Structure formats: structure tokens, C-alpha cells
């Protein structure tokens, strides 16, 4: 299966790529907090939108690719739209929340797209109790694509044998995937120990 790794733009020579991961993370949280508390007046949102475009240009990120990525939030927003319209002034409330959501996700994606996953893992290690989070994060990023491929292979094998999977079959496939993850974790542990990983 072909996967799009989100950090592919992190290897370009752009503005945000050069900024230290820790500084970028702090900046991201501050920007998200600012977006959260800004009043519901359209004028306040314009500087944020300009900032996003400036970051996109100076960090050499393809606008179309970026747009495709932020479109993922729309199904969630659609549900929230139908829930908001029952409220008085619901449409206005939804539109400003939508704008806040779009700006926030743009900042998050700008951060992730310009940060190498290994760098992010190193940064997480520095926060309190971060060593376990960093280990699990690295495992997740390393094996998620693999498990996704394995699941697709098992599903394809089932379909090629003439069985269209139903919910119960998906549960069996998931159970099977967990067994494979369990067995893989035992192999990974042996490989880690043989490469000098020390159990603290």
C-alpha cells in the first residue's frame, strides 16, 4: 500500500523546518490558545489567516497538498453543524467555531509537516514522564503503517476466497491483527535486546 508520510515536507529547506522543535511546540500551543480565546469578530481572524499563508510560502509547502489534508475535518464539522443549528444564533456560533477549527488545524498541520518524526520523539522525551510516551510514540509511528498493510492483506485474502467480510469477520480480522502485534512485539523485544537495548 502507498502511504503518505506527513513529515515529508520536514526534509525541505524552509523557514519552519529550521525552527527548533521545542520552540515550535510552545509556539503552536500559544497560537492555539490565542485562537481559542479571540472574540467572534471576523477582523481578529485575518492576521491568523495571513500568518498561515506566510508560513506555507516560506516553508515551501504545497498549498494543494495542505488543503487536501485539512479537508479531513469536514465530516466532523458537518455533524457539529447539524447539532448547532437548533440553537438560537446557531449558524453564527457554528461559523466562528468552524473558522477557529480550520485555523487551529492549519497550525497543527504546519507544525507536523515541518517537523521530523524522530525530532518530535526526541522532544517528547524531554517533557516530564516523556520517556515512556516517546517510546510508545516511536513504536506507533514505526508500526502503524505496517499493521494497516497487514490488515488490508488479511482482508484481501478473505475477499479473494469469496467471503465478503461482515462485522463479525472484521472482529476476527482485528483479533488476528492483535495476535500478530503480540507476536511481533516478542520478536521486536529480542531484536532490541540483541542490539544493546537495556532494560532499566
Amino acid at each position, binding site marked *: 500500500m502507498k502511504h503518505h508520510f*506527513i513529515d515529508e515536507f520536514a526534509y525541505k529547506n524552509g523557514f519552519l523546518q529550521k525552527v527548533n522543535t521545542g520552540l515550535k511546540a510552545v509556539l*503552536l*500551543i500559544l497560537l*492555539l490558545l490565542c*485562537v*481559542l480565546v479571540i472574540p467572534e469578530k471576523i477582523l481578529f481572524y485575518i492576521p491568523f489567516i495571513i500568518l498561515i499563508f506566510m508560513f506555507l510560502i516560506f516553508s515551501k509547502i504545497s498549498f494543494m497538498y495542505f488543503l487536501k489534508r*485539512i479537508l*479531513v*475535518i469536514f465530516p*466532523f464539522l458537518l455533524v*457539529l453543524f*447539524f*447539532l*448547532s443549528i*437548533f*440553537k438560537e444564533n*446557531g449558524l453564527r*456560533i*457554528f461559523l466562528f*467555531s*468552524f473558522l*477557529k*477549527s480550520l*485555523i*487551529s*488545524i492549519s497550525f*497543527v498541520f504546519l507544525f*507536523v509537516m515541518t517537523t521530523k518524526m524522530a525530532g518530535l520523539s526526541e522532544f517528547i522525551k524531554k517533557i*516530564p*514522564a516523556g520517556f*515512556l*510516551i516517546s*517510546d*510508545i*510514540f516511536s*513504536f*506507533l*509511528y514505526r*508500526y502503524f503503517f*505496517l*499493521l*494497516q498493510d497487514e*490488515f488490508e492483506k488479511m482482508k484481501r485474502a478473505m475477499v479473494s476466497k469469496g467471503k465478503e467480510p461482515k*462485522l*463479525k469477520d*472484521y*472482529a*476476527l480480522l*482485528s*483479533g*488476528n*491483527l*492483535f*495476535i500478530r*502485534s*503480540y507476536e511481533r*512485539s*516478542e520478536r521486536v*523485544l529480542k531484536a532490541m535486546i540483541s542490539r544493546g537495548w537495556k*532494560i532499566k
Partner: protein
Amino acid sequence: MHIPDGFLDLKTVSATNVFSLGFLFYSIKKITKKLNPERIPLLGLSCAFIFTLQVISFPLPGGTTVHLSGAFFISLILGPFSGFFITFISLFIQALILGHGGILTIGANSLNIAFTGCVMGYYFYKFFEGLFPSLKTLWIFIIPFLTLITGSLLLLVELSISGKILFSKSLFPVLFAHVTLGIIEGIFTVSAISFLQKVKPEILKIQKI
């Protein structure tokens, strides 16, 4: 459902993050104290598994698709604190790289999905299993259903406290959608656990934290 950034106000964001981050650090403390370090790869692979499960779409009749939570399933195998910890990490990474949920709303999302599914679900299961041990399969079906409903109610409370929706008007459509999802999650959990019981029962005997 994952709440994106921008839909919760500052007080709700702060309260849910204080609770969830507090519980996360408490879980990490418990895990590092009790976990055999040899189990770290299993924890990592389980996190990748939960992430995969929450990302893969399962088709339903009528052309729609759903995502499973798997939070209760994983807590039955690894225990409530490990379950909460890896579901939290999975939700955080989903928000970071896929845009499913927000960064500031991670506290609310992990409260609705990870805390209810893993911690509440696990202890409710243990309580009811202790009372009626012969009805084990029934509890494995009912508990994920109930935790999903609880999660959806919490979601409504958080959104209505933030002034985005009216609780009374949104209750029926949200509950209706989550009842269906709860039944699916229940069937999934029962089938997957009985499959593990048949094929590799030692997985269900792993140290639970």
C-alpha cells in the same frame, strides 16, 4: 466522535485537560512502577493496533462506514491504566497527524473515549463479572455499549457547556447514532475476545495494569 479544536471554550478545555493529563500522569506512574520493561514493545505495538483499529473504516449496510473505539477491548487485555495510556497516545497522534480531534481538546476526547472506555469500562466489567460470573459474555457486550453512550453524553455536556449546542435538542440524534455504534462495538468486542480465547488464550492472561 472526536471534538476538533475551536468547538470548546476555555473553561471546558482547561477542566478536561487538567483531569485527563492528571490521569495520564497517574497512569504512567502506575505503569512504570508495575510494568515489566520487557512489555514495553507490547505496549507500543498495542498502541499501533488501537490506532489502526480507530482509523480503519468498517462498512455498514447502506453505504456508511464506522470507526471502532477498541478502548474497552484493549483494557480487557492490558488493564485500565495501560489501556487509558495507549488510547490517549493514539488519540493524540490522530489529532496530530490525521486531524481527527484537536490538540487542546485532547483532554475532552480522551475523557469521552479513553477514560470511559478503558477505566470505567474495566471496573464496571470487573464489578458485574464478580456479581454474575456466568454472564461474562453478556457483560463484554453490554459494557462497551454503555461506555460509548456515556462518552456521547459527556460530549454533549462539554459542547453545551461551551455554548455550541442545546443539550435537550441534540440528545436524541446523538444518542440514536451512538446506540447503533454501541451495538456494533459490543458485537465486535464479544467476537474479538472469544476469538482470542479460542486461538491464543495466553493473551488474555497478560499482566493487567
